[in-house]
Structure formats: structure tokens, C-alpha cells
């Protein structure tokens, strides 16, 4: 489903990158959020024709991600223009990143690119230092929801509390 390397695994350093993002096209990437957990949500395409859209759900769940201080970044190979129209029509306020040129380069670096020419439906949670804490890949037609992400963020927080104690 992904390339032969497979999805990046916990414990690995997250490859840094920066991509044009909504709303204004400025480049952003995980390094900008150092000190906070970062959720990278790779998804196949804007405009999936269901109410159960993953990015729409994450916008609705944003107060829960905020409780962990986590930044959420959506990433697909769609262009910035598509992302903008999609974000506007669906009320999505967190950044959607355009992995558009070279196409899918970031998805490839994370082992989340498919032969269909789209990003896989892959979730990668980075700890505040930029190391992969959790990763998960779903079939393209299955919206994984937010429970796995929130569990990972919860473990990160309790892990840090243990270390601090």
C-alpha cells in the first residue's frame, strides 16, 4: 500500500520539511511547532463526498487536540488552491499542506505515498522534540477517527509527567 519502506515507525526522527499551507500559502512544517506535539494527518484527497470526512472531523475535534497543546497539520498532494477552497467550504481552520511539487515528496519521506499517486491515510504523532511517538495507517476508504491520536497524545503527556516526577 505504501512504498517498500513502509510508514515511519515510532522512535525515528521525523524528517523535517516545509510546504505551502492554508490559509495564505506561507510555508510551514513540524519544526515550527517544536515544544508541542504535532499531528501529521496524511490523506488521499480533498473533497471526499461524505459527511464523515476526516479533516472535517478533526476541525470539530480541535478543542480536544488543544487540550494537549497539539498542532494538527493535514497533508495531501492537492494544490494550495484546492486546499483553500476545501478549507473554506468545510470550515477547516488548521493548516492543510500542499505536498504538490515535487509531488508527494513529503509523503514519500514518511513512507506514506501510494502507487495511486496519493498520500496514504496515515497518521503520525510527533513528540515535542520531533521524534515519532505513534504512527498508524488505515485503508484509504476508512476514516480512522481521532481516538488513536488522542490516546497517543495522552500517553505522551503521562510519559512526560513520569519523567518530570
Amino acid at each position, binding site marked *: 500500500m505504501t512504498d517498500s519502506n*513502509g510508514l515511519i515507525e515510532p522512535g525515528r526522527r521525523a524528517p523535517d520539511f516545509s510546504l505551502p499551507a492554508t490559509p495564505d500559502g506561507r510555508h510551514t512544517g513540524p519544526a515550527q511547532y517544536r515544544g508541542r506535539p504535532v499531528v501529521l494527518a496524511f490523506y488521499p484527497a480533498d473533497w471526499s463526498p461524505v459527511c464523515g470526512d476526516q479533516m472535517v472531523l478533526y476541525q470539530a475535534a480541535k478543542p480536544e487536540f488543544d487540550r494537549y497543546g497539539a498542532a494538527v497539520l493535514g497533508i495531501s498532494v492537492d494544490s494550495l488552491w484546492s486546499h483553500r477552497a476545501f478549507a473554506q467550504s468545510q470550515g477547516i481552520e488548521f493548516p492543510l499542506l500542499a505536498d504538490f511539487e515535487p509531488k508527494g515528496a513529503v509523503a514519500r519521506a514518511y513512507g506514506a505515498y501510494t502507487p495511486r499517486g496519493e498520500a496514504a491515510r496515515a497518521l503520525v504523532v510527533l513528540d515535542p522534540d520531533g521524534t515519532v511517538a505513534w504512527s498508524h495507517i488505515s485503508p484509504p476508504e476508512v476514516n480512522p477517527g481521532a481516538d488513536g491520536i488522542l490516546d497517543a497524545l495522552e500517553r505522551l503527556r503521562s510519559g512526560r509527567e513520569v519523567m518530570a516526577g
Partner: protein
Amino acid sequence: MTTPLQVTARLRTPVTGADHVRGAADAPVTVVEYGDFQCQYCGAAYPNLTELLRQREGTVRLVYRYFPIANVHPYAERAAEAAEAAGVRGRFWDMHDWLYEHQDQLDPVHLSLGVEQLGLPPDEIAAEVDKQAHADRVRRDFVGGIRSGVNGTPTLFVNDVRHDGGYALPELLAAVDAAADT
């Protein structure tokens, strides 16, 4: 470790006395629906769930929990809070049915007319919704759903296991019958 494909989500917030329940209290199968009153897919599932309860009376009960996706459905939150306002007056299911039968009339003016049609006090309920008196309850349902793996609306859990199939009556009957047999 990377989580393998297809982890089945399970309901993490058990059904309690605070839930809105329809059907026999001792039914062996419980269907928990996370729904959004403005969602067309929930609207499409509504008659099927009603028919499911009728055809499997005594076997299945339905629990309804709020999951308004406000960024795409501007009236969903108010509709949920109005249903809860009806609920504290013992009329949750009447309001629930009205909302799903009038999904094109969820704007505040029509909603108020609906409340009135049901014989509930429209001004009182509008005031409660305006001051978000029931927002915490709606939020609690939503957060419990998010933590349980709700991934869109409607999401159903059949005896605590997320139902990843469709919402046509034959699929619902099959899911309930399978749960009743185990």
C-alpha cells in the same frame, strides 16, 4: 510499534441512566447512535433505525448521543441543544423525530415553530439554547464519541463495537441479529 490495519473501535463511554434510550430496557442488543441532526446521512438512517426497532422489538434498544459537526452544519449544535431542552422535559424522542423529519427546517424560526407544534414552550427553550444551558451535555456526548472512534455521522455501535457497515435496513437487521446470537 505501528498499529496494524483495522483496529475495531469500541464504545468507551457506557450507556447510563443519563442517556436517551428507546426500546426495551432489558433488550439483549444496544445500538448507540452518534448523530448530527443536520447530517443528511443521519436523516437517511433515521427511518431505517425506526423500522429496526419495530421489527426487532424486545431484542434491540436505541441510544442517541449528540455529535454535531458544527463547522459544516451551522444548525446542528442548536438543534442538539433544543433536543436536550426537550429531553429535560421528558420529550427527547418527540423532538428527535421532529428534527429528523424536518431537516430542511432547522433554522431558528422554523425550529421554534417545531417546538411549538410539539406543545413545548418555544420561548423558554429558545432562551435555554441562547444561553447554552445544555451545551455541556452535548459536548460530553461529542467528546465521548471522539474518544470511542466516532469517525463521522452517523456512527453506530452495536453492543459496544463500531458498526463499519452501511445503514440500510437489511444491514442493520443483520448486525443486530448477529449481536443477539453471540
